[in-house]
């Protein structure tokens, strides 16, 4: 290693000292001192929140649905906080690690952002959250469900991350228990995504623990279009059930092409909620009929009257029923964030001061928050949801008929 003496210029030494001092910068602005810095919002200036969601591509419905949830939650608080208008800037994470990285980098360049809502997909979270945490932005996850994100071994990059969406440890267990009702042998197929790999792992563990046999564990690439060879391979094992947590595009290829594979004639299919969207029905056509998915139990009788009212608002605001299963998370994410801001924001002469570390701690301390998806209580690792699952089934392949409750309808 080069010795410090080699750096001759005094300015360089000062710069070096500043750089090394950077990680533990306690900052004081107005009345607030915070280890991670303070956001100062002058009088009349907006309170700015960032958000990155899957807004384009085959899985756009996931992000757009969540964004609508956020917008409805924003309307509910009048889009202002203590006289400051609330502004949310949305970025597109395209449901991919690369997209997550790009979107997070763009958001990180704006240091006036108080906190971040999103992303939709686990891969984007895996790539994006560490970048945002370098800038000490707390992140409230809207859709990512991969267990690794809130695992004890998740690492220091995820200290600022909580999610209102569920954890796939629970989803995988529920899916396995449901699968065992009609199947003794199962095969799994994922697309190599953070989400798919993790949920398949929890499914397999639970399926085996309850006495089932996993006969094939397969994977495809995220952009593969011809799944028939891999389906033929799975077909040679004659599984009772195929568990395939795929996203929209690969999911549609799967349901269309499985009909062409002889070996899968007697194999039932169980998918998961990323394909619970009209885009999937457009892509899959008639092959979507009877496809079963594991997702959140969105029935009004489970979620209560607040959810019913929310759906009415959604319909009148956007002219259609919710287009995916992520609207409620968007709504709850903003709710949880605003409640936490309310706990830590300090007002002085019309100015607002928010400490980033204090805000992160307040979000993690969320307890008993009455959300649309139930009571939210965040643990120290960042899981806030206590989900109730259901199995849904498409009844028609016509994308226009998409409506949670009838198509897909709840079957278990």
């Amino acid at each position, binding site marked *: 290693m080069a010795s410090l003496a080699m750096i001759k210029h005094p300015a360089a030494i000062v710069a070096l000292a500043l750089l090394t001092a950077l990680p533990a910068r306690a900052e004081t602005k107005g009345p607030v001192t915070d280890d991670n810095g303070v956001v100062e919002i002058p009088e009349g200036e907006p309170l700015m929140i960032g958000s990155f969601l899957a807004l384009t591509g085959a899985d756009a419905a996931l992000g757009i649905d969540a964004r609508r949830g956020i917008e409805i939650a924003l309307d509910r608080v009048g889009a202002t906080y203590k006289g400051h208008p609330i502004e949310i800037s949305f970025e597109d994470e395209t449901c991919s690690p690369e997209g997550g990285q790009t979107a997070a980098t763009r958001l990180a360049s704006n240091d006036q952002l108080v906190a971040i809502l999103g992303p939709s997909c686990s891969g984007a979270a895996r790539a994006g959250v560490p970048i945002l945490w370098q800038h000490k932005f707390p992140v409230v996850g809207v859709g990512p469900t991969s267990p690794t994100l809130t695992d004890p071994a998740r690492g220091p990059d995820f200290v600022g991350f909580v999610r209102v969406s569920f954890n796939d440890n629970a989803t995988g267990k529920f899916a396995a228990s449901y699968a065992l009702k009609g199947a003794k042998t199962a095969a799994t197929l994922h697309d190599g995504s953070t989400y798919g790999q993790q949920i398949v792992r929890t499914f397999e563990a639970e399926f085996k623990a309850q006495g089932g046999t996993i006969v094939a564990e397969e994977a495809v690439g995220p952009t593969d279009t011809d799944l028939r060879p891999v389906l033929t391979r799975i077909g040679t094992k004659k599984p009772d059930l195929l568990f395939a947590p795929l996203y929209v595009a690969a999911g549609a290829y799967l349901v269309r092409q499985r009909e062409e594979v002889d070996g899968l004639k007697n194999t039932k299919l169980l998918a998961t909620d990323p394909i619970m969207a009209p885009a999937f029905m457009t*892509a899959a056509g008639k092959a979507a009929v009877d496809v079963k998915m594991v997702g959140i139990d969105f029935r009004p009788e489970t979620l209560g009257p607040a959810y019913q009212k929310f759906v009415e608002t959604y319909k009148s605001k956007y002219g259609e029923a919710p287009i995916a299963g992520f609207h409620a998370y968007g709504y709850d994410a903003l709710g949880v964030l605003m409640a936490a801001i309310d706990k830590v924001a300090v007002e002085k002469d019309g100015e607002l001061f928010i400490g980033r570390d204090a805000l992160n701690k307040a979000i993690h301390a969320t307890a008993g928050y009455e959300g649309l998806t139930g009571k939210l209580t965040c643990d120290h690792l960042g899981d806030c949801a206590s989900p109730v699952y259901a199995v849904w089934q498409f009844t028609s392949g016509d994308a226009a008929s998409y409506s949670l409750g009838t198509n897909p309808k709840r079957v278990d």
Partner: protein
Amino acid sequence: MNDDTVIARRQNVDGSGHGPSRSGNLLSWLSDAMSEWRRRSTWVDHVMLGLRIALLIIVVAGLTRSLTSNEYSARDWASFAVFGLTLGSIYALVSLGYTMVYGVLRMINFAHGDVFTTGAFGGLIVAGPFIESGSTVGLIGVLVAGASTSAAIAVLIERVAYRAFSRSGSPAPLICAIGASFVLQYTIRGLFGTGSRAYPDVAALNGAISLGIVQIPLVQLFVIAAALLAMAVLHVIVQHTTLGTSMRAVAEDREAAALMGINSDRVVTLTFMVGGTMAGVAGVLYALVFKQIHAFMGFTLGVKGFAAAVLGGIGNIPGAMAGGFLLGLSESFGPAALLSGFGIPAPYQLKDAIAYGLLVMILIFRPRGIFGERLSVKRM
């Protein structure tokens, strides 16, 4: 002179001119050839030989292990063949465009993958009403629409982005091609959005027919047949028409062809048109099999088509067709026949690795591709 001409020359030196007939006794000929090779070879040759032997051992070991494990029935293997041929015929059609343009202009048209996408979308615009009528004529209408869209776009790109640079001898046309690729992708994205669009079901192509032990879906049979027909037509055009003759002449020597009174600009335009037509047909056929199309799908398919062209020997038309089928078959057979023999988990995730591995392997054994470059007898 570049590296691969050196390699090719060396191959000629050690590969030809030593027939068994010359030295009579096969054994003595072999030892002669060995000592001759040892005298002439450099360390590069030794490394290449080692590489080739290692590759052969890996492939043979993988194949025997999978084939003896008896995991798949004869019917499964037959299905793999059909899947491979379907995909391969699409690759072959796409690779023809690369190969023809390279043959005539010595340029890789990287926008060709997106020309393919425009064909699929061009077909989609008319597909709805045509296909809903349920007639076979409608299907041909969709094919024609896709093919003419792609042909028009290909000609337009050539005129706008390539012609001005074609004689400059700089890498400018290559950069223009990449630019044209982006322009096409984002134009389609602007017009149709980022989500997937789906082709409607074609009533005439539903169902399957049994051929011996295997059930072949009609749509795949149609795709293979249509692709073969398109290639046959192309072959006739290139080999038996005046246009084809002038194409071959321009490919061989553009200046000399011009001296013979061939309008080389016109030939180049027509080459792009024919290549575009093939890509458009491929686009529609792809959409008929896989149903989902989106603005960025041309990239991966273009790379595969280009790989197929290189595999067969770029510039060589039969080579491009063979390369396409080989690539398709290796993608469908490879994971089952090669990787599962080694007990590699989830081999289908590595499908593309197999395809590109094959490309590398073939280039190690035959640097000019399977068939070599034939359209271009005279090198630049």
